[in-house]
């Protein structure tokens, strides 16, 4: 029997089948209708939802984490700037490598999804390019979101395509004889010069005739369609955690709130199949950030975006029942000062209440621990880092870049105050042992609440100890778990606990919030 089990254990596992390609059709309406009506109804009929809402039941914490609460699967997330600071050049470059796109370009197909005009082309070096134009009169409106937010997310650790802003010379763009597009009935038809000219006509134009566009490089690997924010891919054996329970996806709510990227739909995700070291796997990408800041893709953002879903039964019911006496702050539109940014309000920002335009199950299941994790990513960017990232954008209007930097800086600080100065979750992090002393870092310093804080330590068999710094002398050969809570200056109660596990070899072996 033991021999049989041994044989089974040593038998080479069959190679995982390559996942099937999922249609890349943008399921705009069906996804939206399901997530904003049926899914919300299902949620409301689940008693557990209300118990959690009333605080009578603990929220479901994220899965797929290591002992330190970090996502395990690098196909989803690879920590970068938050772990080891990237240099300004790397922040400005983003995920892109190699030389800029080289003319002439040959258009191979039209852009058949999304609102902005564009096309798919190959440059002189045979690289595939996805070209998306800014709307007329607003160079930078959509492309600034693409280039800036893709760089921020890449630096944070997400997989994103390489996107750059390019002033496209229409005279260097020709049409392949085999180019296709889709007609109004979604039928594949040959692409004509008139189709291309129409795309040019709907683009922002510089005085010299060049067109403002975001140009994405093709993602390496075989395209396998979107991954979505709900459920798992059943044809991917590595996909063990439901997407709405992945910390890196839940915490995206914090990052998207920061940059006001309201188009957080499953349709804007992408799986690529890659083979490395003889093993095939899916890498999961985030796409399309053109609805960031004050951009609504092909036009300025509507004032409700960022505050409520495109269809939000809760907000509708509240407006109806209050007979219009509840005046939503966003009913008075933010000023649209800079054409390249759209109406990006500099006023009050409540990070935890921010909503994308489509309901997102992962965002809705975000817990305080996920919020902390996302805030740690966002607040790792200093003002100098923001300057480096913004250098990739395009800001024709004087003052626009400083305005955007100022808003991003203020929203980042608001995120820090909300998630790193909260009672709900400990913001102590980065544990290390120095000569028998456990030293933690209070990330509340990023929210300006670390000053005057007190730390209460509890460990088995010893009285609780309070210190004024997040440091504690440990007894020799201490192993086990100790808990530490923080009390902010002016507060009466202690906040959420952080459990630090020290193993037999005297190392920090785990953190739990």
């Amino acid at each position: 029997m033991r021999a049989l089990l041994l044989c089974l254990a040593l038998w080479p596992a069959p190679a995982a089948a390559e996942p099937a390609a999922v249609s890349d059709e943008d399921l705009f309406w069906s996804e939206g209708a399901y997530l904003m009506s049926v899914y919300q109804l299902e949620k409301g009929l689940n008693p557990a939802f209300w118990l959690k809402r009333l605080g009578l039941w603990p929220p479901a914490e994220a899965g797929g984490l290591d002992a330190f609460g970090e996502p395990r699967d690098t196909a989803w997330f690879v920590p970068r700037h938050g772990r080891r600071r990237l240099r300004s050049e790397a922040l400005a470059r983003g995920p892109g490598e190699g030389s800029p796109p080289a003319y002439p370009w040959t258009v191979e197909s039209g852009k058949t999804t999304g609102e902005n005009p564009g096309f798919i082309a190959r440059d002189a070096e045979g690289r595939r390019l996805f070209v998306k134009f800014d709307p007329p009169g607003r160079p930078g409106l959509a492309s600034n979101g693409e280039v800036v937010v893709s760089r921020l997310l890449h630096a944070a650790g997400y997989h994103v395509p390489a996107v750059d802003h390019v002033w496209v010379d229409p005279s260097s763009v020709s049409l392949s004889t085999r180019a296709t597009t889709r007609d109004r009935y979604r039928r594949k038809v040959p692409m004509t010069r008139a189709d291309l000219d129409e795309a040019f006509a709907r683009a922002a134009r510089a005085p010299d005739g060049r067109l403002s566009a975001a140009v994405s490089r093709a993602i390496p690997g075989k395209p396998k369609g979107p991954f979505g924010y709900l459920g798992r891919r059943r044809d991917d054996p590595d996909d063990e955690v439901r997407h709405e329970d992945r910390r890196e996806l839940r915490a995206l709510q914090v990052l998207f709130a920061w940059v006001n990227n309201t188009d957080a739909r499953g349709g804007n995700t992408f799986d690529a199949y890659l083979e490395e070291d003889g093993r095939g796997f899916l890498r999961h990408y985030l796409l399309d950030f053109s609805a960031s800041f004050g951009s609504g893709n092909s036009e300025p953002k509507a004032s409700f975006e960022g505050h409520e879903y495109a269809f939000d039964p809760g907000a509708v019911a509240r407006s109806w029942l209050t007979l219009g006496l509840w005046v939503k702050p966003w009913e008075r539109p933010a000023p649209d000062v800079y054409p390249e940014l759209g109406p990006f309000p500099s006023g009050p920002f409540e990070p935890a209440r921010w909503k994308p335009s489509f309901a997102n199950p992962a965002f809705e299941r975000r817990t305080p621990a996920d919020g902390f994790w996302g805030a740690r990513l966002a607040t790792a960017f200093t003002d100098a880092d923001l300057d480096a990232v913004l250098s990739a954008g395009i800001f024709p209007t004087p003052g626009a870049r400083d305005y955007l930097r100022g808003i991003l800086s203020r929203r980042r600080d608001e995120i820090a105050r909300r998630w790193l100065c909260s009672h709900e979750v400990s913001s102590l992090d980065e544990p290390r042992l120095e000569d028998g002393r456990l030293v933690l870092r209070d990330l509340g310093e990023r929210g300006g609440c670390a000053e005057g804080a007190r730390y209460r330590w509890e460990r088995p068999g010893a009285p609780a100890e309070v210190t004024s710094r997040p440091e504690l002398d440990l007894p020799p050969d201490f192993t086990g778990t100790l808990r530490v809570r923080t009390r902010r200056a002016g507060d009466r109660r202690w906040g959420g606990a952080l459990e630090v596990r020290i193993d037999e070899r005297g190392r920090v072996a785990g953190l739990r919030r």
Partner: protein
Amino acid sequence: MAGTKQVFARVRYAGPPRAPRRGGAVVDFTRDSDTELYARPGPALGWETSPSDRSSHALTRLRGRIWGERRLGSLRAGLFGAADDGETSMGLGGQEPPAGLTGFSRRIILGGAGLRLEWDDAPGGERPVRGARLSGELEAQAAGDGEHGYARGSLEGQAFAPLFAPGRVLALSGSWERLRDLGARRAPFFAYPVLDNENRLRGYRRLRFRAPGAAAVSAEYRWPIWVSWDAFYFLDAGQSFSREAELRPNRWSAGHGPGLRFLSKDRLLMSAHLAFTGEERRFALALGKVF
């Protein structure tokens, strides 16, 4: 109406909605196998009657209008030609109709022309927040039989006032419509203006008030509840009459209730309301414009 088959069908086509219009056409077909007449013998159908006086008739009616118009700033002036083919008979209810009901149990084909003036100073399409609108019509129609014909005049006004926050609007409306016999020709009863759940006096049964004259006023408080949805609470009041001297405040009927308006980017798609009156409460779902 247990045991009887009741059919009410109405098909309406209005010409291309795109602005600027220079003309258009409307065709309206109605087939009603059990049109109720809330009538007692007397000069007027409607205002002084009660549902217990119910009798019925069947009506098949095809109306059409074609018009051309000219726009001068906020003013629009148009001329139209109209035709009306109506036939009535005893309905499924079977009771005798009121005595002296002009045009009953006959097929009458009318034709005529008219003039329409519209003044629109309320920007915002189907969702105005300020301004006023006025419209008036004069029309004459006559039948080839030499017995039937009428002259009709109508006046309608709307005013919109913004309230304490964006999208909160007080909408006021008033309308007056009057039909008169055309010389020796008598006006058929089915051409009389109507006040009911779908016609300016919400909360009352179909054709509840029908007489040669109708006056109504309405007030709505509207507030936005979604990007293109408005909620409202309305108060309607109106009276049908045969002669202006019959107009009395204590004879006005009233209704009130909540409702919702569903709009697209530039059109009113649907309106739903629940109306309460002294007689009953009624829910209605209307496609297109109510008020």
